[in-house]
């Protein structure tokens, strides 16, 4: 518990402030909505930062909403894992909010979706609130409600684009609902077995049984479906590629992370004893296939946004590649590595999708073949793609490098050679598809082009995210210190 009890209340800020802003934005006149969004998101960022500043001294915070002792109330958990992701989320959503305000309110003759703009803001704020609510959830059933909030808001945002996004959104909606039901069925079995929904109370009460195994399998399968782990990734590329620029960025960078983080938390805090090495290896193997399959598909894509979406399929694979490393010697480093990789991918991928949105907005064409001349027309945007690409490849001095290096050294120390090999091969594939984009973008155009004049918020918010992805590779001690706070005992005890 925390030394200063008033600071603890800030834990509801990242959920409550965007939620209140969403309700107000629904009722407010359209002109006020972007400002409400800015206030809600910045408030969330500020409260999360206050809490994170307090955490190293106070240790992980278990906050019981309603004040009822375990197992009666609903638990919120602020530890290294949740606060790292909440800070990442609010920072990215803040940058994407300024981008979206410029993107959605174009001059009347510009291509875009002006009539979608008023509807965008409440859904956008619901996504922000839901993401933070999933990350902070410490209760099995509460996590289900937050997942539904997240899924509906995500699909609502995808469908805003109309056209092919409607079919893609419909598929996403059905997938996310089936995933939720599998998760809830697993929770029902866990509740029947333990009589509790409180995260810390599950593990001590759960004995190995067919019921517990089925519960873990259902919970995991539902979450993997929503996380789009190969071979359950089929719904992701069309949905992420057809959404509006800022929506794609948040979906690909953050929404798939929500269910990943919940999987990570449940496997290590709710049923660590049932997370058998064979099951970990299975997730790792699916991750390896995702890295290779997603990378190869990204190489083949003709459209920039489809390429970036397949890259997400591959990068989700990396996160699961860490599961076999998360027990036994070196688990503490693997834990740091996988959380670092999650935030590195979030910054790089959001920057890439925002940059792709700029190119689509300016040229009306996001095929890779149409990229020549882009470096001259949009130098900042192409530079953003370069920076984000370097972080995705995992080259120094980026945050992607830190995450991959921690995983790679753990894999080598544990003599898990196939994991090390996939980590390296995946980096090469990422380099191949990113250089394919950059090489085209740096070619001169067939016709003479000049530098485009854009609303500054478009180019600079994408650039800021890419830059943050690099900066987090240089200043690593604060984030690594935060990630370690409250790491699950199974992982922390294995530290050398």
């Amino acid at each position: 518990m925390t030394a200063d009890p008033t600071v603890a209340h800030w834990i509801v800020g990242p959920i409550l402030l965007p939620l209140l802003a969403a309700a107000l934005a629904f009722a407010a006149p359209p002109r006020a909505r972007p400002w409400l969004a800015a206030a809600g998101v910045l408030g969330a960022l500020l409260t999360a930062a206050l809490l994170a500043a307090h955490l190293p001294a106070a240790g992980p915070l278990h906050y019981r909403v309603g004040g009822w002792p375990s197992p009666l109330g609903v638990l919120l958990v602020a530890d290294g894992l949740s606060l790292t992701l909440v800070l990442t989320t609010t920072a990215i959503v803040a940058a994407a909010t300024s981008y979206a305000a410029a993107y959605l309110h174009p001059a009347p003759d510009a291509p875009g979706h002006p009539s979608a703009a008023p509807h965008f803001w409440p859904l956008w704020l619901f996504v922000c609130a839901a993401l933070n609510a999933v990350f902070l959830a410490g209760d099995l059933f509460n996590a289900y409600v937050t997942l539904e909030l997240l899924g509906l808001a995500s699909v609502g945002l995808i469908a805003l684009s109309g056209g092919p996004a409607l079919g893609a959104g419909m598929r996403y909606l059905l997938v996310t609902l089936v995933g939720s039901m599998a998760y809830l069925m697993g929770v029902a079995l866990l509740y029947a077995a333990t009589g509790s929904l409180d995260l810390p109370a599950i593990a001590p009460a759960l004995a190995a049984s067919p019921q517990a195994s089925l519960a873990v399998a259902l919970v995991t399968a539902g979450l993997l479906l929503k996380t789009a782990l190969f071979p359950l990734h089929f719904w992701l590329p069309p949905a992420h590629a057809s959404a509006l620029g800022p929506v794609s960025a948040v979906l690909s960078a953050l929404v798939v992370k929500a269910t990943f983080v919940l999987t990570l938390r449940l496997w290590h805090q709710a049923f660590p004893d049932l997370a058998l090495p064979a099951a970990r290896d299975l997730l790792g193997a699916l991750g390896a296939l995702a890295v290779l399959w997603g990378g190869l598909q990204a190489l083949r894509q003709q459209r920039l946004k489809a390429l970036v979406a397949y890259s997400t399929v591959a990068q989700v694979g990396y996160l699961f590649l860490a599961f076999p490393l998360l027990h036994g010697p070196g688990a503490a480093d693997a834990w740091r590595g996988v959380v670092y990789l999650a935030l590195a991918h979030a910054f790089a991928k959001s920057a890439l999708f925002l940059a792709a949105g700029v190119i689509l907005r300016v040229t009306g064409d996001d095929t890779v073949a149409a990229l020549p001349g882009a470096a001259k027309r949009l130098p900042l945007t192409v530079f953003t793609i370069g920076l984000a690409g370097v972080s995705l490849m995992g080259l120094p001095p980026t945050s992607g490098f830190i995450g991959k290096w921690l995983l790679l050294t753990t894999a080598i120390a544990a003599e898990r050679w196939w994991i090390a090999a996939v980590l390296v091969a995946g980096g090469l594939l990422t380099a191949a598809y990113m250089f394919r984009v950059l090489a085209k973008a740096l070619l001169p155009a067939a016709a003479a082009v000049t530098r485009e004049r854009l609303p500054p918020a478009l180019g600079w918010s994408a650039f800021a995210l890419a830059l943050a992805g690099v900066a987090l590779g240089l200043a690593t001690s604060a984030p690594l210190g935060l990630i370690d706070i409250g790491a699950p005992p199974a992982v922390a005890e294995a530290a050398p």
Partner: protein
Amino acid sequence: MTAPSLYAFVGALLFLVGLYGALARRHLVRKILAVNLMASGTFLLLIALPATAAAGPPDPAPRAMVLTGIVVAVSATAFALALARRVRAEQGRPLLPGDASEAAQGPTDDR
């Protein structure tokens, strides 16, 4: 087999039937109904399974969870049906995109 565990089995069965429908049926309204069937099965099991243990008064927590779950399911269904309408208006058929192109190649019963 005691009565509550019979209800739990029926709940599991409804869940499985719904899952089959969500995977195998092609008409969007059928898929949405199938997901609702999964939800009903889950709710039934959620109530019935803890009840096998109860000697005293019934456990209020699963009933509260089911009420919350029903509201969530109603919300999701309302949005899904509205989205299905828009998909049909856009594509001419109430099917998912891949299923629509399959349907264009041969006769179909829209199921």
